[in-house]
């Protein structure tokens, strides 16, 4: 059925469209600025003002970023780290959340309190370091994944979502002969896709951007994650060493130029941004509509 639009509606829609399109473009400006900076020559990048079109087009900044011998292993490590973290931590968190969402769980308040406790009180950096070291996980990629598998806050969010799913659905399944695992896998999970996608995205972004734990636990350069390498490229050259007489031609210490900084930002954030559109389809409302009648 098509609703006839009046002239007023049309004008309103057009103006609305233009304003919104303009707003959309505005959000792209910082990216355009960065992309154009990363493609400009270092001199023109230190010019004042907004850079939207690259000047003195060159890709030296990217060459410099990719020249780093570890950049590809860095990418691989970050991707493995992110993917494994998302899968494992969702597995652990949903199972836990499901159990905690059940009112008939024995000592539920105790277990919930126990978990919530960790949200407010943590051992801190030094005990974590000792733990990892004494577990023999130093310089092991697992040290970046295992300690952060359960994020209490995320887990509680999933639990709360589970609790909003009417118990009647489950009861119906039980009558049809489903056991707990079957209900979890076939009913609860599919119904909870929006929250799972959301949490998956949070975990992925958090893991993608993480770098401090890598600095702390990882010693071998080939195991470094991308962010650590990129941070180093930016710092290299912008920090000076006391009395470090540079014994090379060209002599003068070359501060990391703005172009390289821009290129590293693009290199590090583009891949994770590409993930967003694929997750968006799960952010649909109304999956519950019609699942329960009467």
């Amino acid at each position: 059925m098509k609703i006839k639009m009046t002239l007023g509606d049309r004008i309103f829609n057009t103006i609305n469209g233009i304003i919104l399109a303009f707003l959309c473009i505005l959000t792209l400006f910082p990216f355009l600025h960065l992309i154009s900076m990363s493609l400009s020559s270092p001199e023109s990048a230190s010019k004042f003002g907004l850079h939207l079109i690259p000047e003195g087009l060159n890709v030296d900044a990217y060459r410099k970023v990719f020249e780093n011998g570890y950049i590809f292993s860095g990418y691989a490590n970050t991707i493995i780290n992110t993917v494994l973290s998302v899968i494992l931590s969702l597995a652990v968190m949903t199972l836990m959340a499901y159990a905690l969402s059940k009112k008939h769980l024995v000592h539920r308040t105790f277990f919930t309190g126990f978990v919530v406790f960790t949200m407010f009180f943590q051992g801190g950096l030094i005990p974590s370091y000792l733990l990892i070291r004494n577990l023999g996980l130093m310089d092991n990629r697992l040290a970046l994944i295992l300690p952060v598998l359960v994020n209490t806050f995320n887990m509680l969010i999933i639990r709360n979502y589970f609790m909003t799913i009417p118990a009647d659905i489950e009861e119906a399944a039980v009558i049809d002969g489903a056991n707990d695992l079957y209900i979890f896998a076939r009913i609860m999970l599919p119904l909870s896709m929006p929250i799972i996608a959301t949490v998956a995205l949070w975990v992925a972004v958090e893991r993608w951007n993480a770098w401090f734990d890598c600095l702390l636990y990882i010693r071998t350069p080939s195991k470094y994650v991308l962010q650590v390498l990129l941070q180093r490229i930016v710092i290299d050259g912008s920090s000076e060493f006391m009395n470090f007489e540079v014994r090379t031609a060209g002599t003068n210490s070359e501060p990391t130029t703005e172009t390289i900084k821009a290129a590293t930002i693009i290199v590090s954030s583009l891949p994770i941004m590409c993930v967003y559109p694929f997750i968006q389809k799960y952010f649909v409302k109304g999956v519950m509509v019609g699942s329960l009648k009467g």
Partner: protein
Amino acid sequence: MKKTIAFVLSLVMAGSLMLGGCGKTTGGSADNGTIDWLMFSNGPADEDAPVKQYFEEKFGVKFNLWYIERSKWDDLLSVRFAAGEIPDVFPTMSSSSFRKYIEQGLIMPLSMEMLEEDAPKLVQLVNDYDPEQWKYSTIDGQLYAIPTYNYANKYHIASVWRDDWLKNVGIDKIPETLDEAEEAFYKFRNEDPDGNGEKDTYGLSDKGIYNSIFGAFGYLPRDMGGTAAMWAEKDGKLVYSAVQPEMKEALTLLNKWYNDGIIDPEFLAGENTSGHWSNSQAFVNGRIGYTANGMFYHIAPPMTEDDTGSSFYRDFKKLQGENATYAVGRPPIGPDGKSGNFKGGTISSGGIVFGNQLADNPEKLKTILNIISEISTDYDLNLVSTNGFEGEHYDKKEDGTIIAKEGFQTGAELSKIGAGSIFNMNGLRPVQWYTDEHAQPVSREQYKWAEEVTNYSGIDSKLLVEVESGPKYNTVLDKMRETTYIQIITGEKPIDYFDEWVEEWKKNGGEQLEKEANEWYNTVK
């Protein structure tokens, strides 16, 4: 039920606190052969780094090279310390961490007798710079570190003038006094020095003010970084520079300049909008005509045929055209004949320190001292430590210029092969190497130039340690100082507000700081 939970929770909490507290101390490796070695570096060394292997063979030891990311140095290192991991030898980052390490018993006490016996060359090297240094590595009468000297910091920040602009407005010499500088600033603002027909140029911005103009009144209120306070000596006592009455005069003048539009209104955000701290985007973009932004090597023009000049120089030429020029002048001389640009200061409190576990292992300490001595005084070893091997990592030209090969140029690349600053202990080397045939031609020329242009009057902070109540008061005072100065310059507060600031400073711990600073000063005077 609730009570049980509370009980269990408190048990868990107590338990976790205990767990956190009982990290067992393992220390560096016990055996003599492996040295836990930590130095500032731009990246980690490879396991089989050639320079590392070379020194291992040379000295018959094994190195366990630590790498600590410099931007998170204190955080990362304190975790390792708390876990009982202490390198055998490492540098101190600041005077406050030096004091902290001593208080926590992490580093071992040294004695002059022992150093003179085990590392005479090293003692000589330190004395050649300045024997005074030992005092600053001594806390409460006990020596804890081998001092490291910052040679380049004996020169002050350069006063950089647009000399082409000066000519355009009819001034044919570089201003020397504050009055002459003021005249030039007004002309820069009003007489269109860049000839583009628009009134878009200013005299100066924040670095010119804070690193140079204040100095014409005898004091600099804050250090180069823009946060820490400066301390000066007055009648044999240390004083907090930013509360001296001369600063009120300086602020009066700056307020007038601000009202007349001489100061770039964007000075609040700073003329260095991004990148290395010595960049001045306002200057290279032709917005201001005077700055005091960097050391001589940051602003150096090409010194030899091979030299491309500093990146400041290249940026400036690219953006302002080949005909644009700048020249280095002297710090402007104020009404009472005072002058001075910021100077970092050559002596720092702290230096190279040794993990406390070595106290029980004098042989190992001896080995390490020997390694440091040899690398800092033997030119060939020193060159290996910074640049690797000739033919493999660099080529040498006839005049001695070293040309690093592709892949061994940046700090991180050099660190990979174990070179860079990993074995080059904080730049420890004989003082004459900076200027004699051991120096690189370009570097030698730069130091000659520095002697000419940036060796007039530098103002450095006379307080070289963090006093005991520093952490308690400084944060608040620093913030108050910065706000007050800006408010007075921009006219948001009247000039007399300065007196109020002095009162506030006294009330908020200023007097206590001054007392402690002088207690310390008496111990080194």
